[in-house]
C-alpha cells in the first residue's frame, strides 16, 4: 500500500485515481493507434491482454488504492456519504468499461485470427458413398404403377413361360394365327411358349379375382426379333384391364388420357385410331401428343406431332368367356404399352439395346 496524501479529500483521491488509470489505459491505446490497429498480431494481442489484466488488478483489484477508497466510505460522515458512494460507483463503471473495451477489442482480434486459421474449403465434396442407380425400366415401371394404383388398379404378375392356353387360346389368337408361328414366338422343347404379351395376366387375374376387376400387369415379354436399334428379343410391357358393368370405350379414352396427363403433363392430348388386335373388339391404337414439341412436329415424333403409346380396345367377348366372365353382364377395356419404348422416347435413346448392356456410364444417367 502506498502512502497517501493525508491532506487530500476522498473526492480528490478519487479524481486522482481515475486520472491515473485513464492515463495508463490511454497510453496503451495510443500505442496501438500509433502502430495502426491492423498490424496488431494475435500474439501481441495476447501479451497486451495479460498486461491489461495486470493493470486492471493493480488499479481496481482488492489491494488497489481504489479498493481502499471504497472501503473508506463507511468512515465518512453520514452527510455526503451517499453522494460520494454514487460517485465512486460511477467512476468504477467508467473505468471497468474502459478495460472491457480494450480487452474485447483484442479478444475479437484473436478470435478472428483463429477462425481464419481454422477455416475450411466448404466446396470440397461431401463425404458419401457413390450413389447407385435404378434401371430406367424400373423407374418407368414404378411411375406407371404409382399412377394406376392411385386410379384404383391392382398390380398383378404371373408366369413368364406359359401354356398355349394363356398365351394364345384365351386371348382369342386362333390356331394358325401368325403370332403363334415359331418365327415370332419362342417355344421351349417341352412345347411351352415364352409369353409374347403380358395380356396373359388378364386371364390369370380374371380367373383369380372374377369380375369386376381392375388391374395392371407390368412384366417381361419375349418375341423373336433380331436385336437392332429398335428391337430386343426381350422387352417390358404393361397390360391394363378394367372389367365391370357398364364399361365403355369412353372409359378407355378417359383412363388413358388421365394416364398420359400424369406421366407427360396435363397439356398432353391423346388420339385413338381404329386398329386390329385379336383380343379386343373394337380395337384402337393410342397416340399421345409429342412431349417435346407439343404436337407441331419434331425429330422425336418424326414430324407427325404424335407418338404411339400402344394398343387398346374393348375386351373381346371370347377373352371374357375364356376367363369365365359373362360378356352379356360385363364389358371391359384393355390396353398394352411398351415400357422400354416409352423409356426410349422420353430419354431419347437411339439404340434400345443399351437397356440390357448394363453399362454403368449409361445407368448413371437416370434417376
Amino acid at each position, binding site marked *: 500500500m502506498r502512502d497517501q496524501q493525508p491532506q487530500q479529500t476522498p473526492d480528490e483521491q478519487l479524481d486522482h485515481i481515475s486520472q491515473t488509470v485513464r492515463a495508463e489505459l490511454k497510453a496503451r491505446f495510443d500505442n496501438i493507434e500509433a502502430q495502426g490497429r491492423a498490424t496488431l498480431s494475435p500474439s501481441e494481442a495476447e501479451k497486451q491482454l495479460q498486461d491489461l489484466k495486470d493493470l486492471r488488478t493493480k488499479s481496481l483489484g482488492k489491494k488497489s488504492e481504489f479498493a481502499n477508497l471504497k472501503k473508506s466510505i463507511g468512515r465518512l460522515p453520514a452527510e455526503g456519504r451517499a453522494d460520494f458512494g454514487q460517485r465512486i460507483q460511477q467512476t468504477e463503471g467508467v473505468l471497468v468499461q474502459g478495460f472491457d473495451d480494450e480487452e474485447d477489442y483484442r479478444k475479437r482480434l484473436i478470435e478472428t485470427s483463429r477462425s481464419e486459421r481454422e477455416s475450411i474449403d466448404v466446396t470440397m465434396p461431401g463425404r458419401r458413398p457413390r450413389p447407385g442407380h435404378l*434401371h430406367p425400366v424400373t423407374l418407368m415401371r414404378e411411375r406407371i404403377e404409382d399412377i394406376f394404383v392411385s386410379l*384404383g388398379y391392382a398390380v398383378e404378375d404371373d408366369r*413368364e413361360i406359359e401354356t398355349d392356353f394363356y398365351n394364345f387360346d384365351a386371348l382369342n389368337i386362333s390356331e394358325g394365327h401368325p403370332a403363334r408361328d415359331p418365327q415370332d414366338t419362342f417355344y421351349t422343347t417341352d412345347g411351352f411358349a415364352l409369353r409374347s404379351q403380358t395380356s396373359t395376366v388378364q386371364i390369370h387375374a380374371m380367373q383369380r379375382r372374377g369380375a369386376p376387376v381392375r388391374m395392371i400387369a407390368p412384366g417381361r415379354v419375349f418375341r423373336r426379333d433380331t436385336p437392332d436399334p429398335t428391337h430386343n428379343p426381350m422387352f417390358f410391357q404393361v397390360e391394363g384391364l378394367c372389367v365391370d358393368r357398364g364399361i365403355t370405350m369412353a372409359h378407355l379414352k378417359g383412363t388413358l388420357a388421365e394416364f398420359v396427363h400424369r406421366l407427360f403433363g396435363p397439356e398432353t392430348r391423346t388420339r385413338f385410331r381404329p386398329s*386390329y388386335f385379336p383380343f379386343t373388339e373394337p380395337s384402337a391404337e393410342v397416340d399421345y401428343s409429342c412431349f417435346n414439341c407439343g404436337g407441331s412436329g419434331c425429330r422425336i415424333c418424326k414430324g407427325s406431332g404424335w407418338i404411339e403409346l400402344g394398343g387398346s380396345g374393348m375386351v373381346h367377348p371370347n377373352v371374357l368367356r375364356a376367363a369365365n366372365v359373362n360378356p352379356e353382364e360385363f364389358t371391359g377395356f384393355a390396353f398394352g404399352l411398351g415400357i422400354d419404348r416409352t423409356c426410349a422416347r422420353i430419354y431419347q435413346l437411339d439404340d434400345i439395346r443399351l437397356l440390357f448392356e448394363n453399362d454403368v456410364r449409361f445407368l448413371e444417367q437416370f434417376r
Partner: protein
Amino acid sequence: MLISYNWQRELTATKLDPQEVRERLTNVGLAVDAVEERDGDHVLDVEVPSNRGDCLSHIGIARELAVIEKSTVHSPKPKVENPEGKISDLARVEIRDPDLCPRYAARVIRGVKIAPSPEWLVKLLEVLGQRPINNVADITNYVLHEFGQPLHAFDLAKLGESRIVIRRAAKGETIKTLDGVERKLEREMLVIADATRPVAVAGVMGGEESEISSTTQDVLIESAYFNPASVRRTAKLLGLHTEASHRFERGVDPEGVLRAQERCVALICEIAGGVATADVLDVYPAALPAKSVELRPERVEAITGLQVPRAEVLRILTALGFEVREDNPARLIFTIPSWRHDVAIEEDLVEEVARHTGYDQIKTALPPASLAGEYHSSERRKRALRQAMSGRGFDEAISLSFTELTEDFDLIAEFAGRGRESAVTLTNPIIEESSRMRQTLLPGLLNSIRHNLNHGVRDVCLFETGRVFVVSEPGQLPLEREAFALAATGGAMAADRAQAERELDFFDLKGAIESAVAAMNLPPLDFKIAAVKHLRPGQSAAISIEGARVGSIGCLTESLAGAYKFRQPIFVAEVDLTALLEIKELPALYSPLPRFPAIVRDVSLLLDRKVTVAELLAFTLNLKIENLVATRFVGSYEGEGIPEGKRSVTLRLEYRASDRTLRDEEVDRMHIAVVSALKIEFMAEIR
C-alpha cells in the same frame, strides 16, 4: 400398300385433297404413313391391318372412302366383247385338294399379241411402284391393284395336255419360279400343275416355263380363292413373299373371283387383242356359305358410349356392303359380305359403326370408382430392397433371360442338385448360343461386369432381380423363381471423388446384402463357410435365413475369373428372392428402455485363426450370465506381432442389471468368469 389418289378420284369422285384423304382414312383405321407426289399423281402409303385383306385394293379403299364421304363407288362393269368357243374344248381343270383351293376359275384367250403395255398403264403401274413387263402380265397386275384379286396368266401351249391340276406337291418335286430360282417343294405346299409337273406355286408365284413370252398366242387366265393359312405357310416355307401371297394370306373375295377375271379378260382383249372363250371353267365344289350376324342397336352405346341413330347405323353398314336380312326394333341381322373375312360377331359390327362415326366422337370419362388400388404384395419389400441397394452404391442391371448353357455355377437352393438337363431349352433361339433360359442371374451380371471393364470402368457394383428357370416334371410348366444377385469389383467409390479410398472386399458385398435384407424387414441372414462351385475356397459362404439355405456369397474362382478375363477379384452373391419374400416380416415391438447404465469391458483374445467370430459370440451368449446383456465384435487383427496361424479378436462385453447400477467389483467377477471360459473353450490367450 400404295394407293393412287387419281385412281381413287375416278372411283369415288372424292372431294377431298390427298392430305384430307390421308387424315380421314387414318381415322377409320387405315393409317396412311405418307403421301408422296409422283408423276402428276399422289401416292398414299396405306398401312392395312392384317385382318382387312379386303382393303388391299383400290376398290377396297374406295369403299371406305365412299362411306366417309357418303358417296358411292363407281366400280367398272366389265363385259368381254365378242367371245367365242367353249373352254372345255381347250383346257381341263381339276381340283384335287378342295380344302386348300375352294374355288378355281380358268378362261382362255386365243390369238393375243404380246407387246408392251399402253402408256397409261405403264405410268399407273410405275406410280404404284411396279415394273411393267408386257401387256398381259401388266393387265393382271392392274386388276390385282383394282380388285385385290391376284390373277395369273399361263401360256396355254406350255401346259402339258392343256390341263390344270390343283394338288399338293409330290415329294421331291421342284419348280423354277418366275424369279429364276429353282425351288424344292414340300408335301404340304399347294401347286398348280399340268398333266405332269408343277407350273406354279399356288397363290405365291408362277413358274418360269409356263410364263408368257413374246411368242405366246393363247393364254389361260387363272382366278382363284386359295386357303389363306395354306398360302401363308407355303410362302413362309419358301421365304417368298409376293403381292399375290400377301393378299391370299389375308383372304380374297371368293365371290369376286369371276368379276375380276372378266375384267382382266376384257382388258386383254381390248389391249392385246385375241378372242376369249364364251364361258369359264369355274370349279367351285362347295360354295362358301354367306354368314350373317346380329346387331342389337343398343349394344353400340353399351360398348362404345356412342349414341348413333339407327338410320346412321344402317347407312354405315349397308354402305360397307352388309345387307339387312332382318330389321326389327330389337335386332338387326346382316348378311356379311363375302370379302369381309374379319367380321363374325356383334362386336365386329359395333366396331364398324364406331370407326365410321369416329373414335374422336367418343367422350372421355373415368370409370366410376369402385375398387381400391393395390401394389403387388411383394412390391413394397422389393422397392425397399432396390432403394437399399442403390443407397449402397449398386446400379441396377437387367439382363436378357436367355443364356448359354453353363455348369460352372451352383444354383440357388431350390434348384440345387439339378444338372445340365434341368435347363429350360428353346427350340428356336434368336441368338444361337443363348438357347437356355437362365438358371442363375450370375452369368448375366458377370457379362455386364466384363462389358464395363472392357470400356475402362473398373469399379463396378451391380445388382439384379429377375426370374430364373428350371424344368419340372415332364408335361409340367417349368419352375420359375425370382432371384436376387449382386456382383462387385474394384474400389469402394465415394461420390465426386476420383479415387477409391480402398478396394472392395467380401465384407462390402456381405454388408450390401445384409442392408437389403434389413430394409425388407426380415430376420438377419446367417453365413457359414461352405464349398460353392463358382466361389474361391475359403472365401465362400452359404447364406441361410431361419435355418433354410437360400444362396451363396464369395469371391469368384480363379478359373472362372480367367474364363471371363478378369484381372481383379470379383465378389458375387445370389439368393432366392422368392424364398425371402415368403418369410414373415419382423414385427416391431417396444421393449422398455434400460433405467441403469451399462458397464462395458473389452477383451482381446489371441486364438487360432479358424475360430470364427460367430462361434465366440454364440459361446458368450450361451454362458447365460444374467447381467451380460450383449457381446459385440470390435475388431480382428493378424499380422505383425501375431504368430502364424493365429489372430487376435477383440470383443466388447456389456453388463447391466435391470434394477440397479452394477458395482465395479460385481462386473469384474462376471467378466473374469466370461474371459476364463473363453480361454478354456477356445484355447485363447488374453492380450
